[in-house]
């Protein structure tokens, strides 16, 4: 077991790759009563087209990763939530664009819960009856999200940004796409992507690391795995240009919502490169749009933005996109003014240093939350990045480096906008 000592946050990380390829990370936190454990597969909503080792190409319905996540809990002996509940654990799962995570938290019966998590995710069981039943539930889930203006805005922007890439598709799919899901396609995805070599375990909280590693190793050693068959994930070619500069969505809202951002297509970049880009853009956008910025205060006092105004940067190996926005009475005026303000904005040294101080504080505060640690770490891990290294990257980044990344990202030809308005809003 390798032990990493992170003095700057006073945490230790234990790590081992098991003989079946599973990557295990443990972060014990003394004084915590709970243990939080995640078991994740690098398989998400964008993985709908792949070529298996035998050369066969699989195209699976949109929303299948999310569907599979739901179905995983159904077993012949009953719903796995019950098994966790009997062992005093709260369980959950979620699917993102590129990752599916199963997790539990508990303060008792720890070994039993560890085994339950590892076992249920490694025992696929998909039968027609319960597949059909789940379609009704997921249909309601999709409709619930369709009623959510912020969700519609988010995907409205992605739809406008991406011409072909599955990032533009809703994570749960659509009511019609999920109807096509069957046991065969679920098993095909499961066998390809739910292999220990493609998965990651993260445990954080009040447990003893040597003992925990032993439990996980014993569990995995009791099962046989054939080596993972390599597969090629296939994605359509995505041009640098957005599909359209603007997407207008009609849904009832009390006032319009605007989101805008820059689409950036770049050569594959993971690891520290990805962390550097993310850190640079985060610092830059904070200097523009956090509440301490004169830009923010001007927009607020002109009543063009409200307290929900926010910004984010999402980085993937071949894409980076930003998203900035919130409620506004006048999306066009807001966009025009923001553009002027961005173009005339410079990031000065003292603001840069203050934001770095703030970022350091935010990074350290993450370590109060076991779930934030586990989820962040896993997300970066699947992009070959080390979440813990954010500390050094942020500390060492220079203003020059920040501006280099900004100049690559902020390209007005790649600006995309999405607006949500009510049906009867004719402005």
């Amino acid at each position, binding site marked *: 077991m390798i032990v990493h000592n992170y003095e700057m946050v006073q945490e230790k990380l234990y790590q081992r790759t098991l003989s079946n390829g599973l990557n295990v990370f443990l972060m014990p936190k003394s004084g915590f009563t709970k243990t939080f454990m995640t078991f994740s597969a690098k398989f998400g909503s964008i993985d709908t087209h792949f070529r298996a080792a035998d050369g066969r190409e699989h195209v699976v319905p949109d929303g299948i990763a999310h569907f599979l996540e739901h179905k995983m809990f159904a077993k012949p002996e009953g719903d796995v939530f019950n098994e966790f509940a009997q062992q005093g654990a709260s369980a959950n799962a979620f699917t993102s664009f590129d990752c599916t995570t199963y997790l539990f938290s508990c303060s008792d019966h720890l070994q039993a819960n560890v085994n339950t998590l590892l076992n249920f995710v490694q025992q696929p069981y998909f039968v027609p009856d319960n597949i059909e039943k789940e379609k009704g*539930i997921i249909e309601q889930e999709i409709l619930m999200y369709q009623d959510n203006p912020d969700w519609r805005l988010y995907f409205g922007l992605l739809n406008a940004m991406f011409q072909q890439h599955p990032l533009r598709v809703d994570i749960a799919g659509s009511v019609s796409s999920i109807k096509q899901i069957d046991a065969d396609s679920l098993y095909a995805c499961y066998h390809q992507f739910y292999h220990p070599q493609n998965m990651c375990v993260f445990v954080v909280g009040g447990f003893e690391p040597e003992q925990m590693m032993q439990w996980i190793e014993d569990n995995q050693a009791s099962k046989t795995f054939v080596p993972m068959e390599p597969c090629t994930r296939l994605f359509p070619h995505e041009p640098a240009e957005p599909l359209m500069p603007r997407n207008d969505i009609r849904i009832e809202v009390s006032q319009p919502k605007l989101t805008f951002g820059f689409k950036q297509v770049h050569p594959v970049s993971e690891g520290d490169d990805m962390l550097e880009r993310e850190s640079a853009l985060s610092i830059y956008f904070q200097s523009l749009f956090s509440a*301490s910025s004169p830009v923010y205060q001007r927009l607020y006092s002109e009543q063009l933005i409200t307290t929900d105004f926010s910004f984010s940067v999402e980085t993937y190996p071949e894409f980076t996109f930003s998203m900035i926005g919130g409620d506004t009475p006048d999306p066009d005026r807001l966009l025009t003014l923001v553009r002027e303000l961005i173009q005339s904005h410079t990031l000065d040294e003292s603001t840069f240093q203050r934001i770095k101080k703030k970022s350091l504080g935010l990074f350290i505060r993450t370590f109060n939350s076991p779930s934030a640690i586990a989820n962040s770490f896993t997300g970066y891990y699947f992009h070959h990045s080390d979440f813990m290294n954010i500390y050094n990257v942020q500390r060492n980044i220079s203003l020059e480096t920040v501006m280099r990344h900004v100049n690559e990202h902020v390209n007005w030809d790649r600006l995309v906008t999405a607006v949500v308005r009510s049906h009867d809003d004719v402005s």
Partner: protein
Amino acid sequence: MTEPFQRAEFHRLKVHVLPTKQFKTNSISLFASFPLTEETVTGVSLIAHVMRRVNGRYRVPQTFREQLEEMFGAGFAVDMQKRANQQIVCISMDLIRDEFSGVSLLADGLQFIFECLCLPPVGDGRYLEHVLAEERRTIELKLAAVQNDKIQYAAKRCIEEMCRHEPYRLSVNGIGRELDVWDGERLYAFYQRWLREITVDLYICGDTSLTQVTDILHSTDARQLMEPGPFDKYLAKDISVLSGSDHIANTSPKEISEAFEVNQAKLNIGMRTSVTGKHPLFPALRMFNGIFGGFAHSKLFMNVREKHSLAYYVSSRVLDSTLGLLLVQSGIDSAKKTLALEIIQQQLADMRNGHITDEELALTVQLTLNSIRSTQDSAYERINVDYAELQHGRERTIEQMMRDIETVTIEQIAEVASSIQTDLIYFLHERKEVSS
């Protein structure tokens, strides 16, 4: 054995300190409680909203925020909550501990919080007009935005109708049409009354002690709360709280249906019980809620969602433990309303008849204990649990809370179920096309 809070009372300021190095931060929560009334709710909301952006020392929003960033990105929030007939303003701050920042932030942080509470941004006897105008607008937009989240909107409507004759019907953000009445002068006059009459609880969870905190407080604007002063004659009288049993519930539940722009209908049910936070059966109410609709193995989830596939979400929660209010929420296909309602009502009837299996009980105990224990892993949860306990006139340790849960019987849960009356069935559905 979990560490207890160290407590002290200084005239009008109650201080609760939990010394611990478990977290990377020193977490502070200040609760300022004042009666919730139609005449004052908007004024309190404006005070709270302005407080998020400026105070008497940092009178410009930009410098206010810069100061927080200088404190290593200190977390800062001003929220409001309602509890029975009280409107509570909560100021919280999260400061990274000395060993991570290399500097000591606690004194600066406490000074900042008390500048927010005790030193309002005023000039010439009135609140600074431009910030006040901005916050009037912010509140107006916030009130209008509730309708965007259909789940939140349906819950709000259900509560408004169920509590029609009680202060609890009010939104803590205030009343839209009253906003313009509150000019800078009127707000400042009200603020002075509010400051005199609020009950203030200060909580700190972190690497410090009651002694250290007390020393710091004496050199902050908290002073004026800690020493007797000329305005003490205005101290609020003891407000008796409307308890669950005081309210006469409907003998048969009211039904309200409203049309709205929704893709998915919302069926909400408001319920009342006399088993409130001070009642000896209160732990049994928590268990009732867990079995009824609080977990994935609950009766509502298993029957409405899993068995009949009628809903993606269906749950129940205790809305207010002082008033004894519960809320069932579900998102369904509007054509399935009658069936969904029948199934929900059947689950309540089953619980009244004590139809609870040992397995349901055991699972709920396990998860409830897990939930109680897990509050110990968050500074703010520790603070909130303790504050809630004090509101119910208790001061149980975590161990005592867990014992209370473990000793609840099926008979007690059935007794609680029998005390619960359905007050309102609220249904929000899509608009129907009307053919001419």
